[in-house]
């Protein structure tokens, strides 16, 4: 295994050097504070930029799936400025305060949703040594943090004081809580395979082969289940129950306008990205390059590609898979959604976890 290039690209020495230099000129507390500040700004910037990229990608991919072109006028040939223009427009919109809503909760809800998605966003392993939030129970932390979003959605529906929003929120809540189960179980399957819960540890454990190849067919099926429940977690079609124009108008965010609505919208797309990023981490090896056993020259070439390219490439591949799913299937009814989860996905994922435990105990995995 050629590890030297992976070390060559590692950002850890750089970050340590920056930390040491800062500590040389100021107390450590200030240095940590300053680093945290800079990182926070970088994360929020990356968040916004990725949202723009994802919305553009969604519109083009959706267009292609419907045999049309998609936005291609604003900003030259490719329509690249379409989404920035939309962003500017939404920033100028008035934020309406409803008279009979619960003001505090009404205004808190979008921030909870965006908070949950920013926290889980910071856990992604961008590069070797560049995981922002990296702890021993990293993957558990991601699951916990992303669950705050459900709270935001329920609050949004409740505090708007409208029939549509409360029904939409309860639907979303029921769906998100249900799909959290099979999501968690498939994640556990991978944790069992890797033997660690830390995100960087999971990535490191895939240096000799991505999990999707390592766990025989088990991880492949788990990957599919993860994608389905991840799609549901991101509240996207075919699980976009909350947004039923006929019955519920726009679901839990019906009463929101301007940037408050924008936060929900942003969070939806970033949740898509986070779901894909975690899928890439768990099953496709995060920033690990593709290695084929025996082809040393090929492996060496793959090592030259920096980790962030691998990570973004894999993540956007999974994003494309999710969009493919979204624009293929018709949306499900609420009872069908719950049926699918409780009667089909959860038993299967439990079975997969069981088989994975047996395989791991008897050392039958690669």
């Amino acid at each position, binding site marked *: 295994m050629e590890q030297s290039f992976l070390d060559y690209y590692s950002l850890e020495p750089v970050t340590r050097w920056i930390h040491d230099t800062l500590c040389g000129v100021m107390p450590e507390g200030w240095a940590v504070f300053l680093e945290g500040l800079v990182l926070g700004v970088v994360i929020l910037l990356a968040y916004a930029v990725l949202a723009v990229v994802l919305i553009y990608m969604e519109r083009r*991919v959706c*267009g*292609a*799936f*419907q*045999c*049309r*072109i998609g936005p291609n006028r604003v900003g030259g040939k490719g329509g690249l400025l379409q989404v920035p223009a939309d962003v500017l427009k939404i920033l100028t919109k008035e934020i309406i305060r409803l008279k009979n809503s619960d003001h505090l909760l009404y205004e808190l809800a979008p921030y909870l949703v965006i908070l949950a998605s920013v926290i889980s966003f910071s856990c992604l392993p961008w590069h070797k040594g560049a995981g922002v939030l990296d702890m021993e129970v990293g993957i558990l932390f991601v699951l916990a943090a992303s669950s705050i979003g459900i709270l935001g959605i329920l609050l949004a529906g409740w505090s708007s004081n409208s029939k549509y929003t409360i029904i939409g929120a309860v639907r979303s809540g029921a769906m998100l809580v249900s799909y959290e189960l099979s999501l968690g179980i498939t994640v556990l399957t991978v944790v069992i395979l890797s033997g660690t819960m830390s995100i960087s540890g999971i990535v490191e454990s895939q240096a000799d082969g991505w999990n999707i190849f390592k766990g025989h067919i088990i991880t492949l099926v788990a990957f599919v289940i993860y994608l389905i429940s991840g799609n549901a977690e991101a509240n996207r079609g075919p699980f976009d129950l909350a947004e039923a124009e006929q019955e519920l108008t726009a679901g839990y965010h019906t009463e929101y306008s301007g940037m408050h609505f924008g936060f929900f919208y942003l969070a939806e797309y970033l949740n898509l990205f986070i779901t894909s990023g975690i899928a890439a981490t768990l099953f496709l090896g995060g920033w690990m390059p593709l290695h084929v056993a025996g082809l040393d020259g090929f492996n060496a070439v793959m090592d030259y590609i920096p980790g962030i390219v691998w990570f973004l490439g894999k993540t956007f591949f999974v994003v494309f898979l999710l969009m*493919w*799913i979204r*624009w*293929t*299937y018709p949306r499900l009814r609420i009872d069908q959604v719950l049926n699918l989860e409780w009667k*089909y996905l959860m038993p*299967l994922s439990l079975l997969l976890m069981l088989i994975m435990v047996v395989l791991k105990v008897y050392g039958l995995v690669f």
Partner: protein
Amino acid sequence: MNSFTKYVKRYWRSTKSLVGGLRISIKVFFRKKVTEQYPENRHTTLYVPERHRAMLEMPHDAENRHHCIACGLCQMACPNGTIRVVSEMREDAEGKKKRVLVRYEYDLGACMFCQLCVNACPHGAIRFTNEFENAVFEREKLHLVLNHEGSTLAPPAAKKENPVNA
């Protein structure tokens, strides 16, 4: 068959059908897009389907002859009263009285492009063309006369089969 086998079978069947759906949609993804970038491609790649109905026309041949026998079936078929066939009785060389078309009036503004007139025509004298850029500033400009100035009836030998009924 016990319920567990049923469950597994249904699982398998629905998985297969879902994969089939994905296969179809990825085919569409790579298919040529149907969007027309209209004002830009007006003179280059504009594609209007052949059967698109945009404007009624009475084809005339090189000798300024049409196929309309002024029977008035199209006028009767038209639900909107869009067509008015003005005809007169004339005696031909053998002294037989014959109905001859004078003016074939057509109001494009009232037409709903249902093609009933073309279907009704026994001689294939009228047809719809693809010419769709018909916007004008005055309503009167939409009152059209379809037969050309001084046109005559084509001899029956040159009669064409109505392409719609064929």
